[in-house]
């Protein structure tokens, strides 16, 4: 944030250099751990439901059997295996998060880039719309939109409700990227190298996409990781609000919400899916924290 403060130890002294190197190595390890968590979970989400002999809707044993060797995560009130259900649900959650964040980041960033080349009045309109969207409490926007788009099967082949959640998350998530890229692009635009490019006669599109755009990628990626943390928690909570994926398809938040009443009798059907959401979130948080601009500077 503030650049006012310099390092207290003069840069270049061996001590400062070692401290800095130690810090960067640590951050690199942290980022790697985050990445490994996400990759391992993603793999498990894909493999487990396919490889397992039972499907997520099979009634395999007595209802509410506690975790055992046979059913690692126990069974739910219908006797369905929670292990298989959790991993099948995770695939939907992770897929939703990745697709929505990527769409919001790319769309928002492009809008910000274009806005940088609009006349001031156009820029102001975009800024105010950005502010207004950000002023909507995230959840109100998502509930409203998800309810409006409802359980209609917007895209065939996807579980009912998935497209609605995705669209709602994109609409709620794009503004910070626009704000971020617009402000950075306006600063970059005045750089000597960009002015030189303009003097060379490069068109605005070329300058935007091959000179300014690439310089913004790290900022956008870092913010996307940060937002993934919040979105993971949000997607995992939507079912509590009565919106979300329609029941035959398992989803982590939905598993938590539908089993909350059973909490005094059986903790596993609701807590275990929640812990998976937590691990997903921690993975993103580790990646976000170690790529944040402050730490990599």
């Amino acid at each position, binding site marked *: *944030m*503030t650049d*006012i*403060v*310099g*390092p*207290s130890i003069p840069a270049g002294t061996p001590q400062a250099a070692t401290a800095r190197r130690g810090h960067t190595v640590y951050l690199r390890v942290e980022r790697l751990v985050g990445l490994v968590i996400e990759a391992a979970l993603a793999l498990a989400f894909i493999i487990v439901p396919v490889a397992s002999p039972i499907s997520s809707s099979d009634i395999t044993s007595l209802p509410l059997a506690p975790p055992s060797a046979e059913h690692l995560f126990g069974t739910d009130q219908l006797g369905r295996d929670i292990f298989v259900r959790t991993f099948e649900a995770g695939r939907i959650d992770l897929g939703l998060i990745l697709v929505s964040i990527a769409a919001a980041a790319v769309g928002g960033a492009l809008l910000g880039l274009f806005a940088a080349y609009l006349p*001031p009045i156009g*820029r102001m309109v975009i*800024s*105010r*719309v950005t*502010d*207004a969207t*950000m*002023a*909507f*409490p995230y*959840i*109100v926007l998502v*509930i*409203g*939109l998800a*309810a*409006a*788009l409802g359980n209609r099967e917007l895209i065939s082949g996807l579980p009912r409700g998935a497209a609605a959640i995705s669209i709602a998350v994109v609409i709620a998530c794009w503004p910070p990227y626009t704000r971020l890229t*617009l*402000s950075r692009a*306006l*600063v970059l635009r005045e750089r000597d190298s960009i002015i030189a490019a303009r003097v060379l006669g490069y068109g605005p599109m070329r300058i935007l996409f091959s000179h300014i755009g690439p310089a913004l990628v790290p900022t956008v990626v870092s913010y996307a990781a940060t937002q993934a*943390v*919040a979105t*993971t*928690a*949000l997607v*995992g*909570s939507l079912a*509590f*609000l*009565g919106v979300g994926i329609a029941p035959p398809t398992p989803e982590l*938040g939905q598993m*938590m*919400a539908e089993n*909350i009443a059973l*909490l*005094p009798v059986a*903790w596993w059907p609701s*807590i275990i899916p*929640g*812990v998976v*959401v*937590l691990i*997903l*979130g*921690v993975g*993103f*948080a*580790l990646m976000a*924290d170690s790529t944040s601009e*402050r730490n990599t500077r």
Partner: protein
Amino acid sequence: MSTAVLPSPAGRRIGTRASRRVAAIGGPFLQAIVVTLLVMVITFFLIRTLLGDPAVVLIGGNTGASPERIAALRTQLGLDKPLPVQFLDYATGLLQGNLGNSFQHPANTVASIIANGAGVTFALVGLTLLISCLAGIGLGLFAAGTNWPVLDNIIRVLSLLGLAAPGALVGLVLILTAALGGGLFPAGGWGNGYPENFQYLVLPAITVSFWLTPIILRAVRERAGDVLQEPFAEAAAARGMSMTRLILRHVAPNCAGPVLTIIGVSLSYLVSGAVIVEIVYGLPGIGRAMTTAVGSLDFPVIQGIVLLTGAVVVVLNMIAEIASRIIDPRVGR
């Protein structure tokens, strides 16, 4: 104004001191008005174009009510008029301070429905802010001042956990341990009066604080680390000032700005988190009012809740921005 995102060259000050003060307050104020108006307009048209027909829902969906009855109900609700006319009606009502009546329960005004829910939600948000500020500032200053980097790192990793934990999971675990296991607080519900209701708010507020505390903590930790490296802080340490005194006297006041800013930025997420946690604990707040209204397509109630929560977020943001500009003149942009 804030479109001028270009940072002005260092040291260049435009205008007199007084006019800068006016700009510091006027800019955010105008912006807040514009944004609130936008929220109102966007909500109105989005709801009416995206959501279905409330008349059908009110009459009872698929029971095969005659088209005449549905049409009559639409007229009664004012939904048969063209959209611009409906909007004008709504806007004139708002100017007179009238949010309209609920479609679902025509006897209830939207204002009264919101007031009931908002009381609960604001109490929850307030208690959360109190807990999170105390814990976040305390832990943040401690992490910055401690001589053991291990403690600093433990606090950092724990704060990551808090950030990543979904409110619903924290709620479930707290219900399981503190309410069902320990019997410390009720697992959910709501009472009749205030001293009694307080016990229903404690666990929900702690739940939301699990997320807000790390946010404040990290802002404090970052600023405190910076301040501790400034020459004046090193000079004070060299003079033999104790770490505790240095932190409390010189570092803590410097953290007020970042804390205000980060709270301002997090408000909309804070309200969102509160809404989810409310539902986990079954509190009769804005969240429940909102889900009921969305379920029954109660347009006036949805509009009212969105407008109110939007306005609150905007106004608090504005206050945070003005406050941080006045506290720290460097933030003038």
